[in-house]
């Protein structure tokens, strides 16, 4: 347990230490300032705008910005869908994978453009290398870049005064990809290869085993390049079916640390960028602290539950719950990862979440159900959190009878309508999806476990898709027409409704005048506000999900004592 505490403390310290300089760097990039890569990349950047027929100083209003973002994602969706269906007749397919079913292609395309990376398939037995690197890897990048772009549109909404435009989606997307995601992925990918993550276009390898001389297949592929951005972009979709539990995807303690840090790095750094951008670093710090409090609380519960609540067997050394975990990660690094991956909307796993102890399983589910705002997705986590901040400001304003203000902008009815869309779409779609799945006549044949834990498998699946996370209780059989279609629709709605609402919120905010903070203005940069914010998040999350959680993990916990 001492090692686990030391490891967790080191992780948090490293995360904070790395996120501050990166946050400043991201702010400079997105604000068009000079950084050390400008010299090398600016010519490429200009060339891209020229090819697209746009310019570096193009300005878009909210409608144009939203239309560009949606259109870009639609193009990505169509491309990926056809790539999946037609992979059988395309090159870079040494294992001769056939085209996928149309509903699996729909689900997978929806999943990857929405930064969810829910996977109803196992990569090594379903997908060609071409789909992996030219389809999925690309979406790993651009879905994360889209999140960063929209976040900065919202930030500009707060900063700009009486302006009708928010910048250009194309410029934001290009800068986020070129200056932030590609360089970071480059470093991480090479570090991972050095640890033993595979990176090759060669076909799978057949070897003979030592005892018995049986044939064993070693799956290969261009994995490390995709895994780097899978973590950095909070995507989470594994190159192989067993994701980061699979040793060829995550072979050592060091590769595990690098990947776990990569997951929270950009979402944490964006809090710092936010503080920089609004010229008040305390505003960013308040959000960072709020997220960190949720994270540490969740990590503590998950770790203690895994270490101490597993069943004890006569004649077996008791050393925490090891079912579904790799030896090199053990209880500590597995519980840490489970918390990290569900706090962020990442969803990759280094241990099987279905085999987590009931309380740890509940923590991972609840982190998703809060709306993926505890760090959350790249960009989307922070714009989701900012919606909760506005909601908190609004509720506090109502309590004292004053017009609510945030960062010098009045919060008015239109803004609150957008906030409600952002805050309420995920829980509504999660619960509707769960309810629909449960009443399907053959739903019991999709689950591995029985009783309360079986219900948890379904609730987890729709919490994951309904919050763009993508992890799963692996016992849930996902590749059915119902789950593929319903889940695909949910993932698209839950990504693009809040995203569009955020852009329109930004557009409305940008048009407002700045009002000077008076004596009655609620400060949003002190610990009192952190407390209020935590309260609002918990109330919304708990009110929405306690009944469902009581039927799943809570019943599971008490039922098996």
């Amino acid at each position: 347990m001492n090692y686990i505490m030391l490891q967790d403390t080191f992780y948090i310290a490293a995360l904070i230490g790395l996120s501050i300089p990166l946050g400043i760097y991201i702010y400079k990039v997105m604000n068009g300032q000079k950084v050390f890569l400008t010299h090398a990349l600016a010519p490429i950047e200009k060339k891209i705008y020229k090819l697209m027929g746009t310019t570096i100083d193009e300005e878009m209003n909210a409608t144009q910005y939203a239309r560009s973002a949606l259109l870009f994602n639609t193009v990505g969706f169509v491309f990926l869908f056809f790539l999946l269906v037609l992979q059988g007749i395309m090159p870079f397919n040494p294992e001769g994978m056939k085209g996928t079913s149309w509903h699996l292609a729909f689900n997978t395309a929806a999943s990857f453009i929405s930064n969810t990376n829910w996977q109803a398939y196992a990569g090594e037995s379903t997908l060609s290398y071409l789909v992996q690197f030219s389809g999925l890897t690309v979406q790993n990048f651009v879905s994360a870049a889209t999140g960063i772009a929209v976040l900065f549109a919202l930030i500009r909404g707060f900063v700009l005064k009486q302006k009708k435009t928010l910048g250009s989606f194309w410029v934001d997307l290009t800068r986020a990809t070129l200056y932030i995601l590609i360089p970071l992925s480059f470093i991480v990918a090479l570090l991972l290869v050095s640890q033993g993550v595979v990176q090759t276009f060669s076909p799978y390898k057949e070897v003979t085993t030592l005892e018995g001389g049986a044939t064993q297949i070693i799956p290969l592929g261009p994995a490390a390049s995709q895994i780097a951005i899978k973590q950095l972009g909070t995507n989470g979709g594994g190159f192989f079916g067993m994701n980061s539990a699979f040793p060829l995807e995550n072979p050592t303690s060091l590769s595990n640390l690098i990947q776990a840090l990569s997951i929270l790095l950009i979402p944490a750094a964006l809090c710092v960028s936010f503080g920089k951008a609004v010229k008040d670093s305390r505003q960013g710090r308040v959000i960072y602290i709020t997220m960190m409090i949720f994270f540490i609380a969740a990590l503590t519960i998950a770790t203690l539950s895994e270490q101490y609540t597993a069943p004890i067997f006569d004649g077996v050394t008791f050393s925490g719950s090891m079912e579904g975990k790799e030896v090199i990660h053990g209880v500590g690094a597995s519980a840490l990862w489970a918390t990290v991956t569900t706090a962020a909307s990442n969803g990759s796993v280094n241990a099987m979440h279905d085999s987590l102890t009931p309380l740890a399983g509940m923590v991972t589910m609840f982190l998703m159900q809060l709306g993926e705002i505890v760090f959350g997705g790249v960009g989307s986590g922070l714009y989701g959190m900012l919606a909760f901040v506005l909601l908190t400001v609004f509720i506090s304003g109502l309590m004292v009878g004053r017009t609510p203000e945030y960062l010098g902008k009045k919060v008015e009815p239109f803004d609150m309508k957008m906030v409600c869309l952002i805050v309420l779409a995920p829980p509504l779609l999660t619960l509707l999806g769960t309810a629909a799945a449960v009443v399907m006549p053959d739903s019991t044949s999709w689950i591995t476990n029985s009783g309360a834990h079986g219900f948890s498998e379904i609730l987890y699946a729709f919490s994951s898709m309904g919050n763009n996370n993508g992890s799963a209780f692996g016992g849930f059989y996902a590749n059915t027409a119902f789950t593929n279609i319903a889940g695909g629709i949910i993932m698209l709605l839950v990504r693009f409704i809040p995203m569009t609402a955020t852009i329109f919120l930004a557009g409305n905010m940008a048009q407002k005048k700045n009002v000077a903070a008076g004596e009655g203005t609620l400060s949003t940069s002190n610990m009192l506000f952190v407390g209020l914010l935590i309260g609002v998040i918990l109330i919304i999350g708990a009110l929405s999900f306690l009944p469902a959680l009581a039927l799943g993990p809570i019943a599971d916990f008490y039922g098996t004592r």
Partner: protein
Amino acid sequence: MKNNNLLKSAIICFGIMTFLCGIIYTAAITGISQLFFSKQANGSAIIITLKDGTQKEYGSGLIAQDFKLPEYLIGRPAGTSNLSPSSQEQQTLIQERIDWWHSFDPDNTADIPMDLVTASGSGIDPNITPEAAEYQIERIAQTRNMTEDEIRHIIEDYTSKRFLGFIGEPAVNVLKVNLALDGLL
């Protein structure tokens, strides 16, 4: 911008991104990896030169192989259960594995380490804990007519430590130990 132009921009932008992130980036990483980390990038194969000079591949150091003979170190149960650790099905499975160990090695009365009776996440965990290796030393030594210290020494050679002394868990690579026991590695 008109809608038509916007669609054109979106398609061109997507094309550029596919070229940069899908093709250039993947090709660059693959090239550098094959150049500098060719062993790791190709699956960490264990290639052994036999006495007659031929090279033989014995699998990957990262993927478990099935061992059931008493002279070998035995790894974790294969496959992934996805069962709740507290479920009845899981308890039955674990009891079966405990019974298997007791009938396989009836003289061993020590407690069985947890990792030997639980399935991993990958289903092909190449490692066991040092305790799980220690649990098997006496049996392997007796079967092979070697001393326990000789076996222990080989196991230590293929045990990875915690990174920086506190990150992750120490682990014994089962396949490498068994290759060394057979005098191949």
